[in-house]
């Protein structure tokens, strides 16, 4: 198995998301970048596969704020290789990002045991899912919303679980090489102590790969970015916590819930 996990740094929505003065983008000053949950699960899934089947796991990212920390953390977790592509992620839309990765993989070479594992979906893009676009560009099979992978036929195929809805899931068989968009790993992502990450920072190296800019940074232009008008349907209960608890109990009683 030769697994590649793609890491995207997206603005953390826990922070205040402020609109910039141009009215078309986020105010960069307040953005804190973090890797998405699906990407973290993708790292975990790749490591679980490696533990079972052997092989190699590489994490790849475009250049973005805080990305080195995420790459070192992945190395500390047991990933074999970390690669940073020297293109500014924040300037590229999904299609251009997929183009960049397509040329990266053409350079790297795709073998019969290659498994490309982006996260299913990040929360900040309008143009769609990079994984599916990349699969299309590389003419590889694609399955998204994956929550389980078992390699079969000596690593030539994978049996994959995809989530549908209402708790239903589908089992698929796919020939490798393939692109699988990971939603969640079979186990929660492992924890790695900060001391170990620090140690790795001293010894391990992040490889850099230079690629030329894709033709068109973005297919779609955002005309206007804004906060939704809070419809404010919720009636907000005021008071201290105890008063609020009493009010809620009263509402539940009125409704015959208790």
């Amino acid at each position, binding site marked *: 198995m030769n697994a590649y996990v793609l890491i995207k740094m997206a603005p953390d*929505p826990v922070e205040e*998301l402020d609109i910039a003065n141009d009215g078309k983008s*986020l105010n960069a000053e307040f953005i804190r970048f973090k890797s998405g*949950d699906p990407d973290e699960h993708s790292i975990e899934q790749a490591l679980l596969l490696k533990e079972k089947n052997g092989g190699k796991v590489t994490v790849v990212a475009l250049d973005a704020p805080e990305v080195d920390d995420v790459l070192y953390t992945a190395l500390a977790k047991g990933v074999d290789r970390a690669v940073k592509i020297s293109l500014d992620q924040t300037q590229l839309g*999904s*299609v251009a990002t997929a183009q960049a990765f397509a040329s990266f993989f053409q350079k790297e070479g795709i073998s019969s045991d290659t498994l490309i594992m982006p996260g299913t*979906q990040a*929360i*900040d893009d*309008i*143009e*769609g*899912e990079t*994984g*599916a676009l990349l*699969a299309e560009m590389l003419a590889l*099979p*694609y*399955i*998204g*919303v994956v929550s389980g992978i078992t390699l079969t036929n000596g690593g030539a195929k994978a*049996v994959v*679980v995809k*989530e*549908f*809805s*209402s*708790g*239903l899931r*589908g*089992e698929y*068989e*796919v*020939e490798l090489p393939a692109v699988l968009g990971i939603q*969640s790993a079979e186990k*929660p992502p492992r924890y790695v102590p900060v001391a170990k990450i620090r140690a790795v920072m001293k010894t391990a190296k992040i490889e850099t790969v230079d690629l030329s800019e894709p033709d068109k940074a973005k297919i*779609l*232009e*955002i*005309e*206007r*970015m804004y906060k*939704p008008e*809070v*419809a404010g*349907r*919720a*009636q*907000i*209960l005021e008071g201290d*916590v105890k008063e609020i*608890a009493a009010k*809620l*109990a*009263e509402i*539940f*009683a009125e*409704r015959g*819930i*208790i």
Partner: protein
Amino acid sequence: MSASIIVLVEHLKGNIPEISYEMLGVARKIADASGGKVYALIAGKGSSALATGLGAADVALVLEDSSADVMNDDVLIEALKQAINEKQATLVLVGCTNISFGIGTRLALRSGMPFINWVKDIKTTEGEMVVTSALFGGKVLSDIVLKDKKGILGILSGVFPPDAGKIAKQPSIEHIAKPEIKSKITFRSLMEPKAGDIDISRMDVLVSVGRGIQSPDNIPLAEELANALGGAVSSSRPVVDQGWLPLTRQVGKSGMNVSPELYLALGISGAPEHYEGMKGAKLVVAINTDPKAPIFDFAHYGAVVDCLEIIELLKEEIQKRKGTQ
């Protein structure tokens, strides 16, 4: 220019989900305003029978395939591409759902039309079409202008009314041939949810915990509150993904659909994927420290306080009222 719109209709186990009717409804509206046509494309086993219920479309494009409980994406994308060419489609609507995931983007590359994800609103004027995309779980909206009114749109569940897409007439039926595609993907089987200890879809009261519950150690507190209310604990996705609760307790797009009398959301932001599973709840109460959390947009009552501070107090108040203290 009159619109020619293709709607990709989903179905699983013989059921068409609401999102498909929601898309048909909005497609009908756009087509009527411009004197255009709506095509509903439905593929896989049982499509012919299901197609008769797609009256909001002028024409149902039916790809019957008795061997496909779930249609192969590669075949479906090719069928959609052919339909776009043949019907000179200007718009294609696909659901922002797990089933249709990845179809819109690949179709965009093959058809040369742009793809917009997370679509929450579509406004058409004489000259252009403005599409609103909801990013960051609905915390930020972006307007994108389609000057030629052409595009492939991934439509969020629950934003357009489904009733507009349920019209009691039959569309005309056009059978389409299965494209000859050799796919490297084979569908093997449908996996039913594991029977859990509790079926949250049948509970009248759910105390639902999100990332705001912060630690698995706090789940028992939520359990106690749920017990006091005569209900059970459910959760958002991150709680399940971290292994704090089993998958059977997850509410949302990939989890269960619930419709309790009371949905008490503790530390849940209210992302569209979560909302999708709980929109049937009769009374929604949200406790969240962020006054701007999207969940307050659809909750009936809310309080901007720490859920860990209120859990215990609320349990006591409830027990007091029930006289069990």
